[in-house]
């Protein structure tokens, strides 16, 4: 891509990731949540890959790292679900509720949001990486 695209990408990718993290962390206070925030974070990496090419993006995050992080997200969500057994039942909200409209409130819901965002974001990124790698090795043949 051209120099303009690369410069703008370098300036905006960090802001997009920051916005995605904001959407994830405030999922229990404002519209958004784990799914949308995770896709925004994945889109930041896709943006980076479109501007700088596949090799630069693959040096930041490899496919194995992506699949490991995705499994970690799924296991985190399952662990939060199983932690409910400490209080008696599956998916019980065992942490304290806190005051409404505060960032640290709603017990396990922000943690679940973070796990879902990790799972969704890295999962979609892994799909995109797999398609890109397929296209690249298809051209080599």
């Amino acid at each position, binding site marked *: 891509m051209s120099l303009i695209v690369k410069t703008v990408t370098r300036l905006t990718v960090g802001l997009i990731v920051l916005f995605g993290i904001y959407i994830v962390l405030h999922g229990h206070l404002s519209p958004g949540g784990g799914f949308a925030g995770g896709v925004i974070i994945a889109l930041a990496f896709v943006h980076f890959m479109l501007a700088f090419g596949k090799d630069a993006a693959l040096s930041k995050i490899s496919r194995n790292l992506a699949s490991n992080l995705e499994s970690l997200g799924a296991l985190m969500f399952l662990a939060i679900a199983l932690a409910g057994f400490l209080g008696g039942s599956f998916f019980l909200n065992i942490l304290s509720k806190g005051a409404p409209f505060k960032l640290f409130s709603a017990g396990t819901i922000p943690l*679940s949001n973070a796990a879902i965002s990790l799972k969704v974001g890295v999962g979609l990124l892994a799909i995109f990486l797999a398609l890109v790698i397929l296209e690249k090795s298809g051209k080599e043949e």
Partner: protein
Amino acid sequence: MELHLLLIFMIFAAIVAIEVKDLLSSVVAVGAVGFALCLAFLILKAPDLAITQLVVEILCLIILIRATINKDLPLTIEGRWVFNTLATLAFIGVFLFFAHSALKEMPAFGNPIMAVVRKYLEEGTAKTGAVNLVTAVILDFRAYDTLGEATVLFTSVIGIMAVLRRPGRKKTG
């Protein structure tokens, strides 16, 4: 009123997406349908869905455009168009008939009839501590469903990684 305009626009864009000959224009028309759907969610006061629809639509468009940008496949339409058109019209008629009789039974807009919904709306914030009730429902009351959805996505990623992995595509012959 805006909603009806958006729906008409979506139908028009969908027809354009089917009928246009150029594959890239077709993908752009599909994107127009998606963004109009996002606006429709906003008008129906569902900002959570609107955000999710917007970002997923962008990701799908990027993948579709990258997949279609080099291959401009000409569409061929031939043969049996009388039967196809008649069958389509018949199915549209059947669908409209059943949709009409089903929509007459629906409750008025924004008027929950289920007792469960009223309970969620009244006690959601007190029971979960989450101010955003959508998040309270999907991650607390209905967390089982979210777990199932996460499993579906996990399975699809596993499937894609297994199909598109490097050793699976050896040259044959």
